[in-house]
């Protein structure tokens, strides 16, 4: 079906569009835009920063030689014929909800490149953190197609940004969509932190602070005052205008959320049943995923949870970049937390009747090398890896594609991050060939891949 619905919708959002159309025409276009209703209305992106081993998660190789197979066993899941790693016993019970893609591959062997291609679906070309020519993240791009409501950010990400040795990564923001589409970074207000470095930065919102209504209202007045003062000053003054633009967006969002929105209520984890909090586990990973559910419930269309310490920092701290001591790290710290938290999310969404309309997307940088290295670790391996979809109308209990018998290359149905993104867009009712314009009005097709035939 030729689909220009969303560029139409984008057109409607511009003031030029409004002036040029009569109101009944707008209504007609609007109902055409939703002519084929997607099942998924919201999306939760779970990112395992550092590169989660495909062997020790969703693509175990029990029949491979021991130097490839590794120390862990494969276990049966609720779906006959599908096996996971033995340290995902809770997720194995949810296999009827998961669609595993085992044949992803790309050509980026470093974290920045692997993360960029996995999160944006595009090759990293001339990228740098903060540059407005970078591609938007999947989270930002999905949010671009959502209706904005007062006090409800289109996209939120938690609990911190992705860093590698102190360097902020490119590809985790709105890119050329502009500041308004940067997912709002908020801090998870509870949970035992990942060991090691957890870098917060100044742009994150701490909604718990100063939430007294009168104070917020007076800040709003202050903001207006500031706005006027800045508009009197010279916009050309050495980049001040651009910085202010960003500040303005985040401040407005914060103030709106604090005053008016169910989002504020959702952020208060103290209001959640303590048994539910235990189900997710008292770990920042679990509490972040719990918060993701609460935010989706409060009407936030897309939420991204970073399930890893914020900074890879040379392999220290709890992250998936397991060059050293891979097996003890995975067994003792990474997999149990992930297994419990993600299973809790699936259980929780399901029993509240939310899973059918909430698409859960698992992303990571790349897989890990077949051979165990001299430090008992596995290194970066973009040659083949697994990513997963659940809910949102995607039938679970299936595996698409395969890696070869040693997990080195795709064995069948090789596919790319772009194909995976196209699948996500299709599930969200977004035309993956939709054309958008960047801030210089250059046209871009949002995705170069094709949806996988999994639904």
């Amino acid at each position, binding site marked *: 079906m030729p689909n220009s619905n969303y560029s139409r919708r984008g057109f409607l*959002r511009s003031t030029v569009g409004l002036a040029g159309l009569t109101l009944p025409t707008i*209504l007609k276009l609007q109902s055409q835009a*939703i002519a*084929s209703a997607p099942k998924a209305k919201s999306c939760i992106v779970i990112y395992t920063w550092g590169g989660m081993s495909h062997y020790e998660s969703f693509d175990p190789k029990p029949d491979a030689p021991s130097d490839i197979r590794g120390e862990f066993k494969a276990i049966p899941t609720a779906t006959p014929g599908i096996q996971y790693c033995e340290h995902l016993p809770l997720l194995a019970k949810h296999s009827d909800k998961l669609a595993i893609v085992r044949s992803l591959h790309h050509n980026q062997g470093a974290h920045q490149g692997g993360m960029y291609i996995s999160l944006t679906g595009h090759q990293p070309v001339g990228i740098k953190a903060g540059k407005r020519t970078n591609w938007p993240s999947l989270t930002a791009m999905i949010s671009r197609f959502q209706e904005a409501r007062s006090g409800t950010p289109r996209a939120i990400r938690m609990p911190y940004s992705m860093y590698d040795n102190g360097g902020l990564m490119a590809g985790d923001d709105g890119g050329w969509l502009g500041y308004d589409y940067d997912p709002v970074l908020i801090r998870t207000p509870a949970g035992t932190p990942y060991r090691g470095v957890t870098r917060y930065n100044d742009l994150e919102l701490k909604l718990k602070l100063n939430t007294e209504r009168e104070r917020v209202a007076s800040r709003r007045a202050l903001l207006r005052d500031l706005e006027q003062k800045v508009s009197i000053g010279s916009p050309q003054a050495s980049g001040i205008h651009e910085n202010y633009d960003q500040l*303005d967006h985040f401040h407005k969002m914060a103030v709106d959320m604090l005053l008016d929105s169910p989002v504020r209520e959702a952020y208060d984890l103290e209001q959640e049943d303590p048994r539910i909090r235990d189900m997710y*586990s008292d770990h920042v990973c679990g509490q972040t995923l719990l918060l993701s559910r609460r935010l989706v419930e409060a009407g936030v269309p897309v939420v991204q949870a970073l399930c890893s310490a914020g900074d890879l920092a040379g392999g*220290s701290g709890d992250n998936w970049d397991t060059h050293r001591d891979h097996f003890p790290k995975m067994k003792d710290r990474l997999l149990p937390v992930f297994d*419990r938290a993600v299973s809790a999310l699936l259980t929780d969404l399901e029993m509240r009747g939310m899973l059918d309309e909430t698409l859960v997307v698992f992303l990571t940088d790349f897989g890990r090398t077949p051979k165990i290295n001299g430090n008992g670790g596995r290194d970066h391996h973009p040659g083949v890896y697994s990513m997963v979809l659940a809910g949102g109308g995607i039938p679970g209990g299936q595996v698409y594609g395969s890696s070869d018998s040693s997990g080195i290359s795709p064995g069948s149905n090789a596919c790319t991050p772009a194909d995976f993104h196209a699948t996500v867009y299709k599930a969200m009712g977004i035309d993956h060939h939709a054309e958008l314009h960047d801030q210089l009005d250059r046209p871009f097709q949002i995705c170069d891949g094709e949806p996988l035939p999994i639904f």
Partner: protein
Amino acid sequence: MSCRALLLVPLFMASAVVFAADSEQVEAVRKIGGQVRPAAGADGAWKVEFQLTGRSLTDAGLAQVAALEKIVRLNLRDTKVTSAGLVHIKGLTSLNRLHLERTAVDDSGTENLAGLVNLEYLNLYNTKITDKTLVHLAGLKKLEQLYLWQTGVTDEGVSRLEKALPGCRIVRGIDLSKIVAIPKPPPRPSEDLKWIALTDDAKPPRSVTGSGTEITFTNNSGIKVKIYWVEYGGGLRLYGELAPGGKRVQNTFSQASWLVTDEKEKPLGYFRTGLKLGKAVIPKI
């Protein structure tokens, strides 16, 4: 006003204006907090939601909503609707998705759901309904998803309904009392770090990469101090100031050097971290 703010509103405003011209009923529903949107595919059908912006909706308000007639999707989650209001939605036979979860709905009045024959999705979680309500649902042959977590239904009642509706997925959720919290790990061992005083020209050793740990500074020096991390190359990176009596918990690695200076950046001394959580008490100067 910036044009950014304007960009966000036109679609919503335009819809509101058109809806008002089209239908007074739509306007009335909007006034009581409902979000009304045209439904996909079905001509003149509506999707109506109250769970985010219209939680004060009462049974009386529900009567106004029902005036829209052709509603395919109705979300009343977290509203003040009760069983007494269900009589108003009795005639909404186009409904295929109905959310009544987290309302005061109980068994009285749920007989009004029996005629909603196009329902594919019904959510009753966290309501007071019991098996008596399930009896009224047995004729909803199109029902595919039914949510009954945190209700008073029993195994027998559910199994009777399963026989009547073999194509329906009935979700009862988990028993929260069976959740076992993960026991907290024992606290990591800690140690007192040695204060190594510096004379004017001495320098602290460079940090060397190690494993993740934590250092807790307590300033007993009686003066305000500055805290620097000694970089791997030997440079100094300021991490913060500490008032007299102040405390600061800092993520760090083992084999790191942390330099303490006075306000004028005169080195006073340093700590060297180990694998255990470090207690770093800055002594009286």
